[in-house]
């Protein structure tokens, strides 16, 4: 059973999550800016596209398909993203277990690991606020 019931729900949750992280912790967002990272997550089950653009200040999170070409393109199941955000799964480990597929310079993808680390503390709370159980 996929954790997210719909793409909209996934978008809403991740949007809330990133907003919270940006407001509370500038540092993670700043690493994105410094790395000038342009990374896109293509989720399946449900289908969703999330783009993180560190070239805009402050870092911008866009949802849905757009014409920008990312530097790093990642394909993964939405559930895997969920686990990473919870902190149950480390990004590097996900790579090792081949649960995510990376196109582009993979080392740049690790710059987003910092951001996800910050998300871990905030994410469970966001889920609760939206009435979801872990």
């Amino acid at each position, binding site marked *: 059973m996929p954790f997210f019931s719909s793409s909209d729900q996934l978008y809403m949750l991740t949007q809330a999550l990133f907003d919270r992280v940006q407001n509370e912790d500038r540092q993670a967002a700043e690493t994105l800016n410094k790395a*000038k990272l*342009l990374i896109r997550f293509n989720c399946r089950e449900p289908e969703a596209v999330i783009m993180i*653009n560190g*070239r*805009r200040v402050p870092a*911008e999170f866009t949802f849905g398909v757009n*014409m*920008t*070409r*990312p*530097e790093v393109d990642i394909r993964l199941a939405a559930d895997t993203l969920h686990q990473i955000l919870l902190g149950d799964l*480390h*990004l*590097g*480990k*996900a*790579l*090792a277990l081949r649960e995510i597929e*990376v*196109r*582009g*310079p*993979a*080392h740049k993808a690790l710059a987003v690991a910092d951001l996800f680390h910050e998300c871990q503390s905030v994410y469970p709370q966001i889920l609760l606020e939206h009435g979801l159980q872990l």
Partner: protein
Amino acid sequence: MSDEEKIVRCEALTKAASRCKNKAEPGSVTCWVHRSSAVKLGAQRPSVERFAEQNLSDRELRERLMAELDDLIIRVQGISPEYSPPPFSPEKMVDLLDEQGEDGDSSFRLALLKRLRGSINEDILDIETWKGAWYMVNYTIEYQGDIVKRRLKGDYETDAWGLDWEFIEAVRPFLDFMYKVYWRVETTGIEHISDYERALLVGNHSGQLPWDGAMLMTALLNEHPAQRLVRNLYSKWLPTLPFMSSILVKMGQALDSVENGVRLLEQEELVGVFPEGYNGVGKLFRNRYKLARFGRDGFVKMALNAQAPIIPVSIVGAEETYITLGKSSTLARLTGFPYFPISLRFPWLGLLGVVPLPTKWYIDIGQPIPMDDYGSDAAVNPALLSQLTDKVRNVIQEMVNNRLEQRRAIFF
């Protein structure tokens, strides 16, 4: 292994991370080759005993133990080199550390190991993350291999102009090196370029080869929020040389003609032109940064026909990459080049003279000049065309002069 125990062998590890098989010198733990390491190795033993004496907390003790366990594993593997490590093992990672650690002292090595483990999470026995990092290297290699296989089958895409993104990704490291390290390009004004709309970038041209176009392209790829690609227009002399035209075409560049420019702009692409043409590239050193006459006014026609704004770009730093003292028309005719530059290094140093100097570059992108106000017949009005051409040239000249004033030195 009972024989081994009687003869004291050197305890150092060779450069290949295997255990050194030499006999140890009497009274020492190492052979004569690794004599200098004796001190380090000797120092390690007492420290272990010291730790055992202190009253460390359980956790700290466990950490130390884990670190030593790791060391031990390395030594074991060093002794029996035929034991090949499992596919994703942190061994290679630690080997690298070992190589560095051999020069430092052992506590440094320990500290490094601890740092790495600490950067994962508290779960010390989690080597999964190590596997992950190791996997990434493997993955990149395999991914490259996949790319090669696919390309051999022709299974890749090129657009109608010949643009090949995989090719660009392949040359990107080289371009990035030139951009970040060699020329240390500083770019300002990226915000003047929109995300998805057409625009004509007009720049001053200098340096003997079209490096400025390449750097402008790299600047946008690296810094623009939408990673836009500049499609530069190259002169028709370049494709007669082998490799040049296929490389340029694969990077999305096209021949310099009004037709091509308009067509690209109509597809909402960013087009880059350098109207000084040969006048710009063949400039003598004493005329540097004085913009030559803008050849024909093709670029203004392009912008008007496609209703695309003109964005002036000034590139400072390219002029000094090759310091041209004079031009030889005789040599030009002999070699078939449109002109033959005589610089401080080329042709005296031959091909070495072709390597550009590592000056510091500044790319300044100016405010867009919109073309909407001009009517549809503007493109055939010669007076208007020359007026606009001069205007753009003046704007760029001003930008160049401003930057020259700000610049302190050529190489920094």
